């Protein structure tokens, strides 16, 4: 005889539970964790380099997520940044168990920062919390101004949007008003920071905003 049982359990519950434990661990050391999301080529690593160069280098740890390859980690290490690599071997997002495993090999910086660069993907990384205090989205003008309309979840969950490649906006037909309106609908309070990650233009505001969040 068929019997219907009520379950009502969120599919993400195990990941969320482990992320909460990670977050407690970060908080106990007063480490502020930032989950950096964005599509491939948006400028996530370049953005991190600009942000970290404005913080004291010995206060920062970085976890780099990639499907395969450690070029980004090498580039950060060359700058003297304490960077660790997760290769997901095909998985399209980072999850809490992956962060647990890598954090076990790291010495986090007390009162410092932990930046976690997620896999280049605007879809699934948005769904998995990994112990972060905030998510930020890196989106480039070259990707187009319709991104908030096409990938609503990631923009909805972001505490801020870093808009990279601002210098080429006129050449790729980027419509700032349309982009910002999309973000306002999803996330009325998130600031949008137009930046140029090659020159560093705009990053002083990003770092001032990040630092203010900690106070």
């Amino acid at each position, binding site marked *: 005889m068929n*019997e219907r049982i009520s379950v009502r359990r969120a*599919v993400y519950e195990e990941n969320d539970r482990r992320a909460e434990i990670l977050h407690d661990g970060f908080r106990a050391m007063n480490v502020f964790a930032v989950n950096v999301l964005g599509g491939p080529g948006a400028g996530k690593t370049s953005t991190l380099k600009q942000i970290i160069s404005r913080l004291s280098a010995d206060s920062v740890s970085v976890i780099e997520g990639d499907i395969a390859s450690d070029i980004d980690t090498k580039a950060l290490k060359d700058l003297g940044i304490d960077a660790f690599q997760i290769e997901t071997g095909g998985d399209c997002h980072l999850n809490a168990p992956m962060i647990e495993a890598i954090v076990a090999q790291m010495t986090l910086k007390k009162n410092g920062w932990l930046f976690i660069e997620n896999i280049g993907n605007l879809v699934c990384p948005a769904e998995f919390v990994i112990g972060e205090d905030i998510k930020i989205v890196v989106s480039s003008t070259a990707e187009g101004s319709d991104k908030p309309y096409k990938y609503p979840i990631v923009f909805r969950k972001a505490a801020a949007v870093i808009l990279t490649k601002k210098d080429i906006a006129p050449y790729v037909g980027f419509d700032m008003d349309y982009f910002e309106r999309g973000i306002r609908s999803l996330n009325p309070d998130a600031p949008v920071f137009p930046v140029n990650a090659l020159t560093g233009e705009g990053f002083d505001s990003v770092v001032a905003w990040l630092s203010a969040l900690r106070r």
Partner: protein
Amino acid sequence: MHEASVTEALVAIAVEEAVSRGASKVNKISLVVGETTGYMAESLDFYFRAFTKGTILEGAKLEVAYVKAKIKCPACGLEFERKMFSFDCPSCGAQGVMTKIGNEFYIDTIDIEREGT
């Protein structure tokens, strides 16, 4: 790949529930999926059949109830479903704000059979 890891998680939850309730067979899993999660029923079903092989869920049906995302107009209060590439209110034209409706992703019910019933 997108649906693979979440399907694995949902299978783990469903197996745990079925076993703890003393099920001998599982007929159906009812899943609620919000539009903004971007999960496709076909893909969920594909991975579901792969991950349930050899478990108590093998052969069970995966039923997906989709929930359309709702946007609320802050000016006139209308709740509406979005058109492609716009969040504007279809009634007054003001800029709508996304609500939580459409973010769901949970197992609602499981249909089971028990030995001897």
